[in-house]
């Protein structure tokens, strides 16, 4: 049995509205969900480094019971979000301790992780944990809301330095952010005197990602509102295509092939076959 975490049946799953927010934005931010005493421990753990684990490891094999990372993943808010996004028993793709050195003078180019990924009904998530307060000058992670469905390859987007509506992470200690694997992001230049730490784990789903969250509010009008979000960096024409792809992803996640936003998918898939009589 490779599953873990899901034995806690009372973990707080995401609502449909929050899931729709993730589908539109490509990220989910949980501020200060890790308690201060764990953050102090986390700083030491990250300074020491976290040994690599084989690709595809189950969580119990990668992080033994009682270990810092396992306890991080068992925090209710973290466990509930992870379960809602990728389901029970995810595989650990890989993890990495990211450091941004003080005054190092460089930023990461804007990129999506791994290679171009054309999956339309499945996605990985990347957990990013920040054990310390992150100020603007510490070079917190840059991410571009709504960029996760773009078909680009790794750092081919490195030419883009700034986009309207970008997110330059400033957060309290103990913040965890989940990213869709396709989201454009990068570590910013650290202009402060402090080393900035971030711990990333990428998770692969091992089950079909369909209705894994608390779907009791699936009919809430705010679901469609979230899914209709546009971002300031979207070009006028391509922004409409973003809505189209978001509808398709929501259909895949809910199993509801009739779902649409303002007829976007319906009208361009409408090919009546009835003959006139």
């Amino acid at each position, binding site marked *: 049995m490779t599953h873990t975490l899901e034995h806690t049946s009372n973990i707080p799953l995401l609502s449909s509205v929050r899931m729709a927010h993730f589908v539109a934005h490509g990220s989910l931010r949980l501020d200060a969900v890790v308690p201060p005493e764990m953050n102090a421990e986390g700083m030491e753990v990250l300074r020491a480094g976290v040994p690599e684990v084989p690709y595809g490891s189950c969580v119990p094999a990668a992080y033994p019971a009682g270990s810092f990372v396992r306890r991080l993943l068992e925090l209710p808010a973290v466990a509930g979000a992870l379960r809602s996004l990728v389901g029970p028993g995810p595989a650990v793709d890989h993890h990495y301790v990211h450091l941004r050195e003080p005054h190092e003078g460089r930023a*990461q180019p804007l990129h999506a992780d791994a290679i171009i990924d054309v999956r339309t009904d499945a996605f990985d998530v990347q957990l990013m944990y920040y054990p310390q307060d992150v100020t603007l000058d510490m070079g917190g992670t840059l991410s571009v809301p709504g960029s996760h469905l773009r078909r680009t390859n790794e750092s081919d987007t490195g030419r883009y*330095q*700034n986009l309207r509506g970008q997110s330059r992470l400033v957060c309290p200690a103990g913040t965890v952010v989940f990213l869709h694997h396709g989201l454009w992001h990068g570590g910013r230049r650290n202009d402060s005197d402090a080393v900035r730490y971030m711990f990333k784990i990428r998770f692969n789903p091992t089950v079909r990602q369909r209705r894994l969250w608390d779907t009791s509010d699936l009919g809430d009008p705010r679901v469609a509102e979230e899914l209709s979000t546009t971002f300031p960096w979207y*070009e*006028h024409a391509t922004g409409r295509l973003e809505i*189209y*792809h978001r509808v398709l992803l929501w259909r895949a996640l809910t199993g509801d092939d009739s779902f649409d936003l303002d007829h976007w998918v319906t009208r361009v898939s409408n090919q009546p076959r009835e003959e006139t009589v």
Partner: protein
Amino acid sequence: MNVRQQILVLYLATSALDSEVVGWSAYDGTGRTSPTTGDSDEPPYASGVDALRDGWRLFQAAQLIPPCPGGEYDVSFLKHEFFFEKLVDVGAP
């Protein structure tokens, strides 16, 4: 004159040069500044024409290329990319 290029790249909302800026990058051949990823939330100009009015010289605009058959709905790179330059005298070589 001992000149160096400063390069400004603007990504616009449509293929029109007077449409609004949605993204921007800068590269400084003088070495006086070091623009980089995620260094500003505010665009330097509201539109491509505003950059022209400030003395930037446009030297490249993205072509309008029809989507490949089957790829009409794909979303990928920003399409409306405009390159500008300024020539700056950096003094004696």
